[in-house]
């Protein structure tokens, strides 16, 4: 399936774009997607942490992604 992933902050700089189009296995889990991204962009693995958000909520590691999910990569937040 094809996924669109929104990127922010340092993740946007690492990938070099504010959106990443990715082909992933159907029913890919959040953990699987994170492994896929770390493989493709090793600098993501050097971050303090990163999370995946689906439809404006932090997604659990075992959540199975759907093609129409609004997916975003969330590097360590630093608001306030």
């Amino acid at each position, binding site marked *: 399936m094809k996924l669109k992933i929104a990127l922010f902050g340092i993740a946007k700089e690492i990938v070099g774009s504010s959106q990443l189009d990715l082909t992933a296995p159907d029913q890919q889990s959040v953990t699987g997607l994170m492994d896929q991204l770390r493989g493709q962009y090793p600098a993501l693995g050097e971050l303090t942490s990163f999370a995946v958000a689906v439809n404006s909520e932090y997604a659990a590691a075992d959540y199975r992604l759907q093609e129409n999910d609004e997916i975003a990569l969330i590097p360590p937040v630093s608001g*306030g």
Partner: protein
Amino acid sequence: MHIFLTDQPIDVAAVLASVQDEGAGAVNSFIGTVRNQSTGRRVVRLDYEAYDAMAVHQMRRVAEQAQEMWPMLRQVAVTHRKGRLDIGDVAVVVAVSTPHRADSFAACQFIIDTIKQVVPIWKKEEYEDGSVWVAAHP
């Protein structure tokens, strides 16, 4: 509940006014401002980036959580700035009103502490000789 994300200067008085409530004996606020140094380096400005829709949603979630933890909360307001900020600019304002003061301190602190942990907003510190995304690396 008054939750905003803005790229314009924050009107602190307006945020405080938004939590005025006849049932409240206390209004408590936190104002986060841009400091001129970070870990010994001179900061010249900050650039805040937000995932707008999720940031607003998560700020609202934090305010709802506070209302569950402090059911006596009368009003809650959070306004967060994004974009380019200079030294001394206001980055975030949290304001709450409660019948008595102790709850207002506790709720206000919970809200700002939790916002800093969960709301998808990122700041980049710009120095005279470079820049760093805060907290990105260990």
